[in-house]
C-alpha cells in the first residue's frame, strides 16, 4: 500500500502538463529572442583518418557566412579530460574540434557560423578536407587483437580501462563445484535518441563579463563548473540554463564538444550563437550505450544454488571516454551490479572498456544494468532449464530474503531494505503464473505458436552520493543536490534548483513535498528548474537520483522555512514556543487553543515589510538554501514478468501480458512513478526486440535515421499491470528510493527470457537459447530451424 502523508503519496495531476500538452513548452529550438546566428558542423566522413589540411576560404566567401573555424582556432581552449581515479584507467584529452586526426565518423572538423542554418549548411559543402584514411577499428575483438591499429596512441592496446577484482573464495568454490555453466551474452549498441535532440545557445555580455549558455542538458551545474575551468573564467561569470526538455534519458548527461564550441564562438564573435542538433547528428554523435559482452561462468549446486560467479566483461567505449562519467561507467557498472538480489558470496570480475573508432559511449537509462541483468537473468533460466527447475524456483533458491536484510554483498554493496522475494511472488500472482504455465503446457510442441514467460528480478542503484561517485573514481560529479526555497510575503513558495526535468515531473513532485511540509497546496508552490543563475550548484537529473537528492533538499529547505515561520508566528501569538504551534491549511495555530494567524500574516511579518520589527525575528525573510548528499547508496528493487506468444511462421512475438512489481520505497506521486516505469519498459522492449546501431566494417553508421534505427511505437508496447510494494528507505529523507531507470532495466531480460521460454516448448527448438539482443524475428526462426543456422549477419 502506498503511504499517504499530506500530498506525498497521491497522484496529484502534473503541474507541467497543461502547458506542455498545449504545445506551450519552450524548448531550446524555441529560444530565438536573441536572434542568434546559426551554426553547422563539418563532420568527419571517416571513422579514422589523419587530417592533412582543411580549406575553408571558399566557404568564408559565401554571402551570409560570418565565420569559419577549424581545430587550430580552438587551441586556446583547454581540452576536455575525463578524470576517473581508478587503477587501470587511461585518460585521453579530447579537443572540441579535431586537429590532427578524426577518430570516429561524425567528429567535428570545422565549424561554420552563418545568418541561418541553410546558409551554414551550404557553406559546409564548400569546405575541403584532405584526409589520409587510417585503418578503422570497429569491434572489440579486432581492437584487442595483437597488432591492432590504435584508436589513440595514448591508449595502449586500445584498452581505456581494465579492472580485475576477486571477492571471496572463487577458486575454491569452482574447485568444489558440482556443476559449472558457461554462457556469453551480448547486447547491441543502442541510442537513447530523445525526441528533442540536443542543442545549445550562448550569449556573451562583455560589459558584465557574463557568459549565458542555454543548453538542452541534464547537468547544468557540471557544465557550469567545467566551462569556467575550460575558458579560465570565474564561475560567477557564467550562467547555464536548461530550458524545457523533450527527453534526455542520460544522453544529455554528458558534456559534448558542441557545448564548448558554441559558448566559445559567442565569446569570440561577441554574437549570440545557436546550434540545434538534427536527428542524423543525434544518432551519429549522441553518446551510444551498451554494446556489451558478458562471458559468465557459474559454479552451481545440483539444487541450482550459485556458489560462485566469474565475469569477463567487454564494453565498446567508442573513441572517447565521455565526460563526466567516463568509459568506466558501464564497465564498472555491469561488473558491480550483476549480483543483484542474489546471495552469491564468491565473485570475480575482469572488465575492460575498449577504445574503437565509433561514437563515444555514455550514460543511457539503466546504464549497464539492463545488460548485466540480461546476462544473469538469462543464465538463471539456462541453469533452471538444465536442472529441470521452474525459473521462479531457481530465483527463490538464490535470492536474499527480507529476513537476511540488511545485507552487504561481497563487493561491499549494502542493501538496507528491499522486498526481493515478496516482489517475485506478487508478480507471479498478478500474472496468474500457474494458470499461464498450464495454458502453455496444453499447446502441442509442434504447433505454429508457443507461449513463453520471462522473469527479471533486479536491484536498481539510485541517488548516488558524493561517496558513491568517489568510490567509482568519478572525479567531476559532486553527488549532492540543492535547492533555494523562498516563501514570499503572500505565503506562496518558489523552489529554485539546477536539477532539470526532462519528463520527471519535478514541478509536481517537489511541490508535493514542499506543500506537505508547509501545510499549503501544491498549486502554491512554483518550481523553477535547470538555472544555475538562480539556484545553488548541484549535480543533475540522471541515474534515478532527483527524488532522493532534490526531494531531500526540498524536505530540508521546507523544514527550515517552517522553523523560521513558527518562530515568527509565535511572536504574534503570545510568544508561544514553536513546539506549541502547528502549521496547516494556511494557518499557524496554537495547539489546543483558539489562537491562530494566517500563514500570509506570518510570512509578511517575517519579511518585516512594515517597519516596526519584532524581536523574534532571527534573519529577515523566508529564503533558505538546502543541500542534500544522500546516504552512500540506495537500492530499489523490482520484478518484470512478460508473457509473449511467438508466431513460429513469421518469427514475430506478441505480448499477452506484462507485469511490473516495483519497490521504490515511499512513492511521492504514484501516477508519475507508473509513467516512469511504462516509459522505461518501452525503451527496454525496444532494446530487446528492435534497437541496434549498426556500423559497417569501415566504421560508417548504417542506422543514421529513425527509418533504420527502430524505436518502439505505441503499437509495440503492451499495456502493463504495475503494482507496488513499499519498503521505505531507512536512511533517505522521506524514505524514498529512486526508480527512474528501472523500467528500462527489467524489460530486456524479461522479454528475451520469455522468447526463450516459448522457444523451449517447440519440438523444433535447436536447443540453443538466444543470448543476444535485439531479437529479430528471424533470430527466432533460426532457433527452430526455419532459417539457416548462422546468417550473413554473424549471429
Amino acid at each position, binding site marked *: 500500500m502506498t503511504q499517504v502523508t499530506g500530498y506525498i503519496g497521491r497522484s496529484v495531476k502534473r503541474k507541467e502538463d497543461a502547458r506542455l500538452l498545449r504545445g506551450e513548452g519552450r524548448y531550446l529550438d524555441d529560444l530565438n529572442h536573441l536572434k542568434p546566428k546559426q551554426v553547422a558542423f563539418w563532420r568527419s566522413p571517416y571513422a579514422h583518418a589523419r587530417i592533412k589540411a582543411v580549406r575553408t576560404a571558399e566557404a568564408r566567401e559565401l554571402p551570409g557566412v560570418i565565420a569559419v573555424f577549424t581545430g587550430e582556432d580552438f587551441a586556446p581552449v583547454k581540452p576536455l579530460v575525463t578524470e576517473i581515479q581508478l587503477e587501470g584507467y587511461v585518460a585521453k584529452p579530447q579537443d572540441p574540434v579535431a586537429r590532427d586526426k578524426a577518430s570516429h565518423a561524425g567528429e567535428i572538423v570545422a565549424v561554420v557560423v552563418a545568418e541561418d*542554418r*541553410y546558409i551554414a*549548411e*551550404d557553406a559546409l*559543402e564548400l569546405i575541403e578536407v584532405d584526409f589520409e584514411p587510417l585503418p578503422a577499428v570497429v569491434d572489440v575483438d579486432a581492437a584487442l587483437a595483437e597488432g591492432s591499429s590504435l584508436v589513440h596512441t595514448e591508449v595502449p592496446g586500445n584498452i581505456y580501462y581494465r579492472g580485475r577484482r576477486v571477492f571471496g573464495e572463487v577458486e575454491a568454490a569452482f574447485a568444489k563445484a558440482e556443476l559449472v555453466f558457461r554462457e556469453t551474452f551480448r547486447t547491441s549498441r543502442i541510442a537513447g535518441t530523445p525526441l528533442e535532440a540536443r542543442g545549445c545557445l550562448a550569449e556573451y555580455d562583455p560589459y558584465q563579463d557574463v557568459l549565458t549558455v542555454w543548453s538542452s542538458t541534464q547537468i547544468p551545474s557540471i557544465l557550469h563548473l567545467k566551462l569556467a575551468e575550460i575558458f579560465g573564467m570565474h564561475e560567477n561569470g557564467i550562467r547555464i540554463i536548461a530550458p524545457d526538455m523533450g527527453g534526455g534519458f542520460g544522453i544529455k548527461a554528458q558534456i559534448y564538444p558542441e557545448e564548448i564550441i558554441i559558448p566559445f564562438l559567442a565569446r569570440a564573435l561577441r554574437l549570440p550563437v545557436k546550434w540545434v542538433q*538534427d*536527428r*542524423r547528428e543525434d544518432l551519429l554523435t549522441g553518446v551510444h550505450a551498451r554494446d556489451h559482452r558478458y562471458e559468465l561462468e557459474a559454479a552451481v549446486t545440483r539444487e541450482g544454488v550459485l556458489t560462485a560467479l566469474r565475469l569477463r566483461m567487454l564494453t565498446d567505449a567508442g573513441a572517447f571516454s565521455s565526460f563526466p562519467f567516463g568509459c568506466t561507467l558501464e564497465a564498472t557498472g555491469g561488473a558491480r551490479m550483476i549480483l543483484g538480489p542474489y546471495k552469491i558470496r564468491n565473485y570475480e570480475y575482469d572488465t575492460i572498456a575498449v577504445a574503437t573508432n565509433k561514437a563515444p559511449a555514455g550514460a543511457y537509462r539503466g546504464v549497464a544494468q539492463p545488460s548485466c541483468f540480461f546476462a544473469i537473468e538469462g543464465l538463471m533460466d539456462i541453469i533452471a532449464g538444465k536442472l529441470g527447475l521452474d525459473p521462479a524456483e531457481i530465483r527463490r533458491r538464490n535470492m536474499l530474503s527480507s529476513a537476511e536484510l540488511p545485507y552487504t554483498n561481497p563487493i561491499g554493496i549494502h542493501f538496507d531494505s528491499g522486498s526481493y522475494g515478496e516482489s517475485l511472488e506478487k508478480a507471479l500472482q498478478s500474472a496468474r503464473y500457474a494458470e499461464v504455465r498450464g495454458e502453455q503446457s496444453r499447446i502441442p510442441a509442434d504447433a505454429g505458436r508457443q507461449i513463453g514467460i520471462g522473469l527479471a528480478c533486479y536491484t536498481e542503484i539510485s541517488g548516488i552520493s558524493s561517496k558513491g561517485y568517489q568510490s567509482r573514481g568519478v572525479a567531476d560529479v559532486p553527488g549532492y543536490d540543492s535547492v533555494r526555497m523562498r516563501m514570499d510575503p503572500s505565503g506562496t513558495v518558489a523552489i529554485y534548483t539546477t536539477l532539470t526535468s526532462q519528463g520527471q515531473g519535478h514541478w509536481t513532485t517537489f511541490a508535493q513535498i514542499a506543500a506537505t511540509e508547509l501545510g499549503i497546496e501544491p498549486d502554491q508552490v512554483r518550481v523553477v528548474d535547470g538555472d544555475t543563475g538562480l539556484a545553488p550548484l548541484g549535480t543533475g537529473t540522471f541515474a534515478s537520483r532527483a527524488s532522493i537528492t532534490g526531494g531531500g533538499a526540498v524536505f530540508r529547505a521546507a523544514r527550515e522555512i517552517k522553523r523560521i515561520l513558527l518562530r515568527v508566528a509565535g511572536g504574534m501569538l503570545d510568544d508561544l514556543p514553536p513546539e506549541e504551534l502547528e502549521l496547516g491549511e494556511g494557518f499557524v495555530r496554537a495547539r489546543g487553543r483558539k489562537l491562530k494567524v494566517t500563514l500570509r500574516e506570518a510570512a509578511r511579518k517575517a519579511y518585516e515589510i512594515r517597519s516596526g520589527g519584532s524581536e523574534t525575528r532571527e534573519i529577515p525573510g523566508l529564503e533558505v538554501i538546502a543541500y542534500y548528499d544522500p546516504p552512500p547508496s540506495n537500492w530499489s528493487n523490482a520484478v518484470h514478468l512478460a508473457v509473449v506468444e511467438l508466431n513460429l*511462421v*513469421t*518469427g*514475430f512475438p506478441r505480448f499477452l501480458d506484462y507485469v511490473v512489481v516495483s519497490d521504490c520505497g515511499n512513492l511521492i506521486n504514484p501516477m508519475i512513478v507508473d509513467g516512469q516505469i511504462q516509459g522505461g519498459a518501452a525503451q527496454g522492449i525496444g532494446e530487446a526486440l*528492435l534497437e*541496434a546501431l*549498426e556500423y559497417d566494417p569501415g566504421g560508417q553508421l*548504417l*542506422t543514421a535515421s529513425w*527509418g*533504420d534505427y*527502430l524505436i*518502439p*511505437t505505441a*503499437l*509495440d508496447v503492451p499495456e502493463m499491470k504495475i503494482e507496488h510494494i513499499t519498503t521505505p528507505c531507512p536512511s533517505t529523507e522521506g524514505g524514498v528510493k529512486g526508480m527512474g531507470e528501472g523500467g528500462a532495466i527489467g524489460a530486456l531480460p524479461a522479454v528475451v527470457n520469455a522468447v526463450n521460454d516459448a522457444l523451449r516448448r517447440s519440438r523444433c527448438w535447436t536447443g540453443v537459447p538466444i543470448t543476444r539482443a535485439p531479437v*529479430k*524475428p*528471424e533470430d527466432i*526462426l533460426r532457433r527452430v530451424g*526455419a*532459417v*539457416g543456422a548462422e*546468417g*550473413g*549477419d554473424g549471429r
Partner: protein
Amino acid sequence: MKSAPFEYLVPASLAEALETLAGHQDETKVLAGGQSLVPLLKLRLARPRYLLDINRVPELSYLELKDGRLHLGALTRHSALGREPSARGSCPLLAEAAARIGHTAIRNRGTVGGSLCHADPAAELPAAMIALGAELKIDGPGGTRLVPAAGFFQGFMTVDLQPDEILAGLSVPVAGPGTGWSYLEVSRRHGDFAIAGVAVWLSLDDKGLFRQVGIALAGVDDRPWKARACEDFLVGKEAKEEVIAAAREQLAGFDPTGDIHASREYRELMAGELFVQALRQAVERAANNL
C-alpha cells in the same frame, strides 16, 4: 539537414506544369505529397534547381467510377483510398494496401502518384497496382500515353517516365461477383516498409475455378515483382488448398537483398508464407462474393 537552395514553382494547371517542366527538363523535380522527396532534399541527396509543386493542379485531383473502372488522379492521398466510400467499396485491395503505408500523417499527405513514381521496391501501392493491372496515364509534351503498371517499373527506383512527363492518374478494375483480394506484409514495426509483402487480386468463376489472377510482391526484388508464372499456373485451376500449395512451388525468380532489417533468406521465406496466406484469404473472400 537543410535542403540546398532551389526555386519553388507552383503551376495552376496541367498545361502550365508541363510547359514549365519542358523548359527546365533535368533540373526540375515534381513535388507531390513530399513524403519521400522532402527527406531526400533535406539530406541533400536530391538537389534540383527547381521544385515544381503540383498540389494546385486541378486536373490531377479526381476520384471517380467510370466505364467499370476506378479512376484516380495522381494527387489522390493514400488515406483517401480507405476513406472515400467509392474507392474503398470498388477497390478494397487499395484500401488494404494503403493502410500499411507509414502512419496517419504520412498517409494524409502522401499521394498515389508519388508512391508510384518514387517506386520504392518495398512500397505497398506499386505491388498492389501491378496485381490489379492498373493502367497509368502519363502526360507529356507529346500528349497522353497509357502504360500498364507491370511495365512502368523498370529497375531500382526507376520508372518509365521522361523528365518532361507527369503521371496524371491511373485506372484500376473494380470488384465484381467472384472478386477476391488480399494485401499482407511483414515489417519490423507497423508502418515500416515491407520486409516482404504480397498483393493479390483475383476472380473465381461460378465453378470455383480461377478466372483471373494478379499477384505482385513487395520488398523482394529491385522493383515490385509480378508473380507471372504463378498467375499463369493458377488460371483455370480449381481454387483449393493443394493448388495454392502447388502455386507456391512456382514462386521463384525474384532476387531479394539482405540488409540490417532482414536477411535474404528471411525475405524469401516470408514471401512464400505470405503468398500462401494472401492467396487463401483472397480465395475465401472471392468465394463469399460469388
